[in-house]
Each structure stands twice: as structure tokens, then as C-alpha cells.
């Protein structure tokens, strides 16, 4: 009699065990699954074709190597020395039309930054760091990273900033100046691009939940 009961219990236990894991996957959470199945992607998909039309340069920052858009070709009046042929002091006396009339610096405050924080009067074709090291215009993120170090970390890893083209390797990220105007880096407020009139109607008729 006792034996028979035991058999029932065993059967029940087995059934419970069978039913408790549903689905054919044996992972208890998505993190387990990722851990178990992860491997560097070398599949058929690639972003190369999507990136073909974009002029890109490779940057290597710490453990990260990725592509960013080339910049110098995008700056309308590059190279700077084509106009800046004389030292600044001599040019400031020039009383014709001013070249950079549209640039108003709205980046930090004047105690912290002025034109010369990033631009060097002696070397117009390059940017400069706080310690007067030259930085190529293509690698302008190095100038930004001096102050915005946490954003820089996030950008390197891929948490900050937009990507160019697709998710598949090779990775291409926008660089700082592709989204932020360096002279006025914050985003403006603006209107949303769309408004759902149907939802609004439902709301008026009190149909939404």
C-alpha cells in the first residue's frame, strides 16, 4: 500500500518536472540565453554595402575600433589657410564683409571657453587641445572629449550617438559634430513631427482607456 502511494508521488513529481519547463529552450532568462549562445558575428550580413556611399575614416580608441564620417570634406571653407594667410591681428583690421559673421559661440560660458579654446591662431588648419596639441579636424571628438568625458565613454561603447547604416558589422558611428553644432551644441526645442487626430477623437469621445 505504502509502496503504491510512493509510486503516485513519484509519478506526480515527474509530471510536474515535465510541465514546469515549457518551450524547447532550456534557458531561464534572456541573459542565460545570451551567455550560452553568444559568439562574435561573422555571418552573411554586413553594413559594408550600406556604407559604400559614405566617406569614412577608421578610429581606434582603447579597445574600440570603428568608423566615423570624414569631416574635412564636409566643411565648406576648408582649408582655413586659404583665407587665413596672414596672422589674425592683421586680419582683424580688415573692414570688408566678415567671413564668420554667422558664428555666435553658445557653448559653456565666456569664462570657460572662447574661440581659442579649440582653434589655434597660429595653426588654423587644425584644432587644438587645452595643452596646445594639434588635433585634426577629422578627429574633432578628441577636443570634445577633454570636457565631456562621460559622453565620450558612452560614445566609444555605442550608448551615445547615432549609428550610420545598419546593425551588422562593421560598426560606423556618427561623430560629435555630425549631430551637435560645436559652436551651439545643445538641441533646440521644436514641434513634434506628427499628431494623431484619431487618438484625439477617441479621447474626446472618451473611448480610450
Amino acid at each position, binding site marked *: 500500500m505504502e509502496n503504491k502511494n510512493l509510486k503516485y508521488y513519484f*509519478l506526480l513529481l*515527474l*509530471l510536474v518536472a*515535465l510541465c514546469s*519547463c*515549457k*518551450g*524547447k529552450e532550456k534557458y531561464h*532568462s*534572456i541573459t542565460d*540565453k*545570451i551567455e550560452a*549562445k*553568444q*559568439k*562574435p*558575428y561573422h*555571418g*552573411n*550580413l*554586413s*553594413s559594408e554595402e*550600406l556604407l559604400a556611399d559614405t566617406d569614412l575614416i577608421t578610429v581606434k580608441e582603447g579597445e574600440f575600433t570603428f568608423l566615423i564620417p570624414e569631416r574635412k570634406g564636409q566643411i565648406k571653407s576648408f582649408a582655413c589657410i586659404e583665407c587665413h594667410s596672414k596672422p589674425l591681428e592683421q586680419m582683424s583690421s580688415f573692414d570688408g564683409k566678415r567671413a564668420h559673421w554667422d558664428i555666435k559661440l553658445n557653448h559653456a560660458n565666456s569664462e570657460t571657453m572662447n574661440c581659442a579654446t579649440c582653434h589655434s591662431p597660429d595653426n588654423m588648419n587644425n584644432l587644438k587641445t587645452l595643452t596646445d596639441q594639434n588635433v585634426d579636424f577629422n578627429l574633432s571628438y578628441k577636443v570634445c572629449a577633454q570636457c565631456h568625458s*562621460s*559622453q565620450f565613454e*558612452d560614445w566609444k*561603447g*555605442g*550608448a*551615445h*550617438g*547615432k*549609428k550610420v*547604416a*545598419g*546593425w*551588422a*558589422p562593421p*560598426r560606423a558611428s*556618427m561623430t560629435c559634430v555630425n*549631430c551637435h553644432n560645436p559652436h551651439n551644441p545643445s*538641441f533646440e*526645442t*521644436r*514641434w*513634434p*513631427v*506628427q*499628431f*494623431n*487626430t*484619431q*487618438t*484625439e477623437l477617441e*479621447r474626446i469621445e472618451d473611448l480610450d482607456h
Partner: protein
Amino acid sequence: MSDNKKWYTLDLGLNKKTESSGSCGCGKTQGGCSSHKEIEKEEELSPEDFYEAAINASIGEERTRDGFEQVFDVKMDRRTAFKKLTASLLIGAGAISSCTSVVQDADGKEKAQIDWEEQFKGNYKLMTDEEKQGTVDRLMRSYELRTGKNISMTAENAEEDVLFGYAFNISKCQGYMNCVSACVEENNQDRNSEMQYIRIHEMKDGEGFKFDKADDNYYHEVPKEDHFYMGTQCFHCDNPPCVEVCPVQATWKEDDGLVVIDYDWCVGCRYCMAACPYDGRRFNWSKPEVPEAEVNKNQHYLGNRMRKKGVMEKCTFCVQRSRKGKNPACVEACPTGARIFGNLLDPKSTIRWVLENKKVFRLKEDLGTDPKFWYFMD
């Protein structure tokens, strides 16, 4: 059985004996036998046999048979047989009259032939690659016959070693809603009902996530002071409740983690809509309409192809784009870089860096749905 594994069943390695115990012992093939019989049987059945019998009683032969067989090769009583016969005669009469009529031209006949084959095709997830290509070809031809315009539709399967995941930066989103309109344009959503997969919730700082107090249809300059924005859409759960409840298995999770719908298999019961804890699913109450000039012609069978009235749809992480290596339309449209998409299995992907280095969370994690959509802050 083992060579016929195209769908998600309860598979614990015990299915080898399937064929030996075809039905559940009570003689019925449909509807299941009453429960007391099962208990009587339990004494002499091994757990495997019992398990098989239980499965057979509930879904039975549908496990091994596909569309046509499911419809026609069914044991039934006379009454049901007559009922079905009458119905199919009516359909048949209609089809024959349209495809054999002398007044109809070749195009009309081809259209009728396509409609016939589409009507009786099987469930997409059970199709072989050739069958998938077949239905895609038919749908493209059918569109051409109806509108005179060509579309390109594909049926790419999930790529190996890919599991799609998504991260959303709530400190970056400014509420511009570029993602919402890009999604509508990309996925051919109904313009009349203004269906949208993505919702951007405007929430007040310091009050936490209160979806009932949030506004998802604001219209004023954004970002509004003292507010933050978070987007919701289908989270492509790894343990999706919507898939569990579908009575016809018209929705399922693909190997790359996308939860997809076969619009031609969906019966429109909206169980999935009720089961989804995130309001991720949408229903076509009317025939979806998109002006011909605005139709996105790069389509995928499981993605943005034109839907019909009475079926469910939802975000597919733009399957027609993501399976070609592109980012979904919302990611591409976002002007703030708040949306990050990638391959969770690739340790070098940016999404993995976000998951490992930022403080991420998911919505309603306690439900055990395991969404593949994470939120994070700077």
C-alpha cells in the same frame, strides 16, 4: 516526428514514441476524452505515454499535418461533413465561375488561380523555403495584377547567430516623434485609422513611470520643461504571452527573436492583444489603406506587406530591414540617438556594451515575459 520539427511544441526529448500512441485510447480524435478516463489509464501508462496521450487529446493530428490536410483530411460525422461540403461547394462554385468563365481574360484566370492557392496555403511557419518563396511570388504577382505596380517581397529566414535586441535611452529622447512617422511610412500602416506601433509617453519628472498619467498624444513644443519621454512598442519578449494564447498559432517567435505574425493565418480573435502586457499589438478594424504613391514596396512576408481587415499586426523590428543588416526605421529616424539596435549574441555589438555598462531596466520584469527591449539613462 523528429524530422518534422518546424514549430514550437513541448519537447522534452520524450517524443520518440509519438507514432506508436496515435490517439488517446478513448477512440475519439477530436475534442479530447473526458478526464476521468485519463486518470484510470494513468495506472498502466508510463509517464511518456501519458504525456503523449495528453498532447494528442488536445491538439492531436494538427501537430503533424499542414494546411490542406488539416482542412480536408479530417474524420468527422455526417452532419459536419455535409455542412463543410456545402460551404466548400459554394466557394468552389464561385472560384470555378470566375476561373472558367469565357468572358474572363487570362489575367482574371491567373488571379483566380492565385487566390485559390493563397486561400488553401498552409501556415507560414510550417512552410519549406520553396513554399515560402511560392507564396511570396504569388503575392507579388497578385499585387501586380490588381494595381499594375510591382513590389519586391522577400521571405528571408532568421540569420544564424543573431538575436535582435533594442535599447532606449530615456534621457536622450526629446519627444520629437520622428520615429513614429518613419515607422508608419516604412510599415505601410493604415492611414485612415492612423495606426501607430510606437507610442511616445510624455511623463512628468519625479513621478516615476505612471502610464495612466502620461500623455502619448501631445502637441506642443518639445521637450517640455520638467518632463521626460519614453517610447513603447512591441518588445519582442523572449517568453511572449501573445504567442501562448494564439489559438491558431498564427504568431510565433522566430530564431532571431522576432515575434511575428502570419497575417494570412490570423483569425482576428485578438487574444494576443489582450495577453500583451505592453499594449504592443494593433488590430485592423477596417481595411488598411495606404495611398499608392506612399506604399513602401520593399516588403517582407512577415513584415510590412499589406494587411487586410480583421487581422493583428505590430512592430516587427522592421524585419524587412533588420534581416538585411539595416537598422529599423525608428532607429534610423531618431535625431537624438536615443534608440540602439543590434545583435545580442555578438559580444562586440553596441547593444551588448549598453547592457553591460549602463544601468538598464525593462518594463514589468516581474511578469517573466523577458522583453528584449531595455531602457537606460545617461
